[in-house]
């Protein structure tokens, strides 16, 4: 498959989605909306934060981010939204439910968006996570080493589950369920066991078939057409419908009947004609593998799932049937009204937290930047960042602590940046190396930001502030290079955005830039910046 996907995420999810045709946003970053992909996935996870109030607020902000995203992406491209699952519920008191409520609100909102927008699909992630106990969902070692919250050991299982979901997402919803009778809608054979001898209601296995019939009735109430295709005597079946008290599905629930001794492929074709629906909107259920095989061979457009041999497995079978073929995210008028009321209340409650565009969103974050010259305390972190940062890294030069110290001793000016916003502190997450080239000229040897803080325009504020500082110190000319790598494509036009002029491009794609520091650079007023 050549489909390309862009994934919005707030944690490391590369082990699960891989790197073939997939690119990723920065952590929590929605400012980059690549247009040259075929679809988008939103896969956020509930972060680890012991401050439940702050965490609940952050989760509610995802809802707003999702709205903002929805308003800005191409509605012709699918957006698949994962529901949130809290892997690490941490309740300091027994009645603390703010985080659970925020998770529920996000999920409700995402499902409502999916119901209203045909290009948005909602994926219930708990279908996957509920297979595991909470302890195995997180591997703390890998979380703390790489911010991979979902246990990377589950990657193989996840890929299998996800490819199933992807198949379902592309499947057309089916309209009609064609059912066999003997050993399918009840246990036993009507013609041999008689009306009272068939297994329906009462103890096992009759209770399994009873549940199954009631569940199918619900499907019929939700608009799925039911039909019967059975080798039987129609009079016997009618009598069973009339007389067996446990029969939840009766004659009137079926839109079409083919109870005869003809082959089932012909019967199903007849049913399709009678109902005026396509064969590709039909699902056929039969306990007999030979009948299933015949229909599969003769009518490949019809979906023919395997029916469980054990009646006690009918219940999960029904669930998978719904999930694979019939789940419709349609919302009734009443539901819609409820959703609206709910939204209005939520809006009033969190007026202060809402925003209309990216600028006001950024403003709402109350961002604080500290710009700190390299010193003995932050030097190890600066060197480590040069080693590890790949995406937002203009030159990708790797340095050891000793390398950095040596350059500082030679008169280089090395700064780092520490960032904080209302959702917490990110610590030292950016660095820049200025190399003196002439009495009024500096070169940017290295510039990088950790990807977990991208999408907030911090790079502009960081570099802009330092340019202004250098200007005050008498520097008039700045030169800088962008050296392309497999990973740093997103920084290719960073210096253009900073108003620098590209003066030449090498064969390997390296771009050389120049800037005359004449006027001070304007910096958005929503960054609270401190130079130390």
């Amino acid at each position, binding site marked *: 498959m050549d489909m390309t996907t862009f994934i919005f995420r707030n944690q*490391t999810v*590369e*082990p699960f989605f891989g*790197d*073939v045709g997939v690119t990723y946003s920065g952590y929590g970053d929605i400012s980059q909306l690549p247009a040259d992909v075929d679809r988008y996935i939103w896969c956020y996870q509930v972060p680890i934060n012991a401050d439940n109030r702050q965490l609940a607020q952050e989760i509610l902000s995802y809802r707003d981010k999702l709205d903002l995203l929805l308003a800005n992406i191409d509605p012709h491209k699918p957006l698949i939204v994962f529901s949130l699952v809290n892997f690490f519920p941490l309740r300091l008191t027994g009645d603390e439910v703010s985080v659970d409520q925020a998770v529920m609100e996000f999920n409700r909102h995402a499902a409502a968006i999916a119901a209203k927008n045909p290009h948005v699909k909602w994926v219930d992630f708990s279908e996957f996570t509920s297979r595991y106990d909470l302890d195995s969902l997180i*591997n703390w*070692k*890998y979380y*703390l*080493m*790489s911010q*991979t919250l979902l246990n*990377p*050991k589950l*990657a193989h299982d996840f890929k299998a589950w996800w490819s199933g979901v992807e198949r379902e997402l592309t499947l057309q919803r089916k309209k009609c369920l064609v059912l066999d009778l003997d050993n399918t809608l009840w246990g036993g054979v009507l013609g041999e066991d008689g009306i009272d001898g068939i297994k329906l209601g009462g103890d096992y296995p009759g209770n399994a078939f009873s549940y199954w019939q009631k569940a199918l009735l619900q499907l019929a109430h939700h608009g799925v057409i039911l039909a019967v295709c059975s080798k039987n005597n129609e009079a016997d079946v009618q009598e069973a419908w009339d007389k067996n008290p446990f029969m939840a599905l009766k004659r009137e629930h079926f839109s079409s009947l083919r109870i005869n001794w003809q082959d089932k492929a012909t019967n199903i074709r007849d049913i399709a004609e009678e109902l005026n629906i396509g064969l590709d909107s039909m699902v056929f259920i039969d306990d007999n593998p030979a009948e299933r095989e015949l229909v599969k061979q003769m009518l490949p457009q019809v979906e023919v799932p395997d029916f469980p041999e054990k009646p006690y497995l009918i219940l999960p079978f029904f669930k998978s049937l719904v999930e694979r073929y019939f789940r419709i995210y349609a919302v009734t008028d009443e539901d819609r009204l409820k959703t609206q009321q709910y939204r209005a209340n939520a809006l009033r409650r969190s007026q202060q937290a809402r925003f209309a565009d990216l600028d006001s969103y950024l403003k709402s974050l109350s961002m604080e930047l500290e710009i700190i010259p390299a010193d003995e305390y932050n030097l190890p972190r600066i060197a480590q960042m040069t080693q*590890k940062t*790949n995406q937002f890294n203009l030159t990708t030069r790797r340095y050891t602590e000793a390398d950095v110290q040596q350059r500082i001793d030679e008169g280089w000016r090395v700064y780092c940046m520490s960032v904080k916003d209302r959702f917490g502190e990110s610590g030292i997450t950016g660095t820049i190396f200025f190399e003196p080239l002439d009495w009024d000229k500096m070169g940017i040897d290295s510039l990088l930001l950790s990807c977990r803080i991208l999408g907030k325009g911090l790079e502009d504020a960081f570099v802009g502030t330092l340019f202004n500082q250098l200007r005050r110190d008498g520097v008039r000319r700045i030169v800088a290079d962008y050296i392309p790598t*497999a*990973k740093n494509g997103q920084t290719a036009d960073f210096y253009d955005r900073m108003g620098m002029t590209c003066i030449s491009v090498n064969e390997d794609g390296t771009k050389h830039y120049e800037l005359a520091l004449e006027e001070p650079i304007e910096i958005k007023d929503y960054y609270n910046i401190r130079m130390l």
Partner: protein
Amino acid sequence: MNLNDKVLAIMSEVFGLEEVSTDVSQKNCERWDSLRHLTLASELEDAFDIELEPEEIAVMTDFSRVIEMLNSKLN
């Protein structure tokens, strides 16, 4: 399959490369980045039924160090 071959097979899977040779290191292999390094550690843990500590994962920067680490864990 001997240890070397088994590790090379895991590496080529993790790095998404057709072939990996025994002189592979984080320095000379672009695909061996920090994220795949952890995937590699996780795969090795599963394949050999061992636990690797973060400090141990950190020093497995080339093929021979990986083998060395595995030998110390397996013996």
